[in-house]
């Protein structure tokens, strides 16, 4: 903690419950889920630049899905919605995983080039595969658990590029329909995990605001499409 940080308001448990809402792939379906429990999301749908919204006694804070565990762990948000893929990658964040919201279903897979054996060949002749991914921890854990050695290369942008230009023999990535893989001449070789949107809670909020948290969880459970 730096001295300057002291005057900034710290995460504080009080006032309306704060719910972290993911922008990006889960945005639309999350807003639909919030509609179904009777929240007014018109303002959020209309104004794409504002970050914080108030709706029916809740404060909705919008952010990248991968930031949700960070805010919730610190108590800057009491609850949050994010993908299981994010939780798997950040498994050391202490947040309570409360509910599978069902939408945003996709799979974490190992993929290689269609009809190309370089994954197997690399393993056989070079002792290990080179794998490009945005999920280095998931990938490392997976290869460790399956007793294989792999050089995991973290990339930030389109992972599909890496095997096409020879940066990697294969990729570990999230797949919803598989169309992106197909368009880039890649195919699924192994499934690592299933993912969908999850509701997570801060550890202290889950205890000290138990009734409010349980109420919201119950409404979201009932509202599941």
């Amino acid at each position, binding site marked *: *903690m730096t001295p300057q940080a*002291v005057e900034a308001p*710290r*995460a*504080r*448990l*009080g006032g309306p419950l704060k719910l972290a809402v993911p922008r990006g792939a889960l945005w639309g379906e999350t807003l639909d889920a919030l509609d179904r429990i009777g929240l007014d999301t018109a303002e959020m749908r209309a104004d794409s630049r504002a970050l914080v919204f108030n709706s029916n006694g809740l404060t909705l804070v919008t952010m990248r899905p991968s930031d949700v565990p960070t805010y919730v*762990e*610190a*108590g*800057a948000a009491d609850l949050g919605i994010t993908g299981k893929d994010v939780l798997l990658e950040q498994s*050391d964040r202490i947040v*309570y*995983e*409360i*509910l*599978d919201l069902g939408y945003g279903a996709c799979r974490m897979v190992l993929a290689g080039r269609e009809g190309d054996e370089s994954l197997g060949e690399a393993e056989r002749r070079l002792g290990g595969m080179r794998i490009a991914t945005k999920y280095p921890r998931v990938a490392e854990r997976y290869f460790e658990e399956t007793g294989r050695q792999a050089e995991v290369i973290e990339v930030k942008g389109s992972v599909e590029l890496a095997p096409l230009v020879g940066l990697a023999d294969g990729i570990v990535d999230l797949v919803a329909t598989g169309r992106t893989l197909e368009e880039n001449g890649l195919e699924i070789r192994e499934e690592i995990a299933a993912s969908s949107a*999850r509701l997570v809670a*801060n*550890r*202290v*909020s*889950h*205890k*000290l605001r*138990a*009734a409010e948290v*349980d109420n919201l969880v119950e409404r979201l459970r009932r509202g599941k499409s």
Partner: protein
Amino acid sequence: MIHPIPPGSRDILPDEMRELRALQSTLIELFEGFGYGQVATPTLEYDEVLQRGEGRSGLGAYRFFDERGELLALRSDMTIPIARLVATRFADVPPPLRFSYVGNAYRIVRPQRGQVRQFMHAGIELIGSSAPEGTAEVLGVLSAALDAVGLNRAVLGLGDADLYRQLLTELGVEGEDRGRILDRLAEHNLVGLEAAVDEVEGLDAHGRETLLRLPGLRGGAEVLEQAHELGGIAVERAAQRLQETYDLLVERGVAGRVQLDLSLLRDLGYYTGAIVEIYDPALGHILGGGGRYDELIGRFGRAMPAAGFGLYLERVHLAQMEEERLTRGRSADARARDSATRERSEKGPL
């Protein structure tokens, strides 16, 4: 010149040190007042000693070899060194024994997580006094300590470490299934818990419902009634243990800040029976924890029931600052309201 220090550690400068020192001495004097004499143990222990206490290895302690090739560890916790001290130095002294401590402990951190390698821990150990009286005494001291440092709103979450182990045994869940369910409970991953429970073969609907509903039970005395409705020997016994402790806490006048919590499962390997977590509404992290560890001292050769708690002082300090700021905010609001009222009354009725 800039000379770096390892991430997760920091220098403490006079302003902060003054406040931390005040915090430490408030706590230590309070502990002494309750008869808990302060002890200090070495920062370095033989790794074998810490592992004997943990009952398993590798819980994030820094380890290294000394000049003779002995494996040493930086203490990651204050309770195990005190268990060692009691068995070695107080082998013949009649119980109960009461000790307090304040000191630094060390744990391995993951980079870029804002985790600290070194943290200041203060707490007490009550050795040779069994449940529920011993537990209630420890929680009474804890409550007084929180008041003494100005955290009047702090809450004690009280659960039972044996509940799920005994419940799974009662339900006949063993082996990998058992390990998976306990892991999910410790992470408080309710989605994963449901999946793990559904993988158990031959579990009846009632057993399933009990395992899935218990982790949601937290609150006042009504929680024990809800547990009672779920039934079963293990749940019944845990509810009974909690009830006995809770009744004593009512007598001591601290039950008002206690939240009964059947979802608690602390990650340290030595807890038995009552377990405690400490929360303050001003902070999103737990302030500390504790509970009973009736088997720990026995691992060092003198079997005695025991209980204790430890507070993370840096977090307590942070919560103090937050509470002060909130109080300032409230009194500023009150002043603003007062002056508005005065203005209105000076202007006369509108």
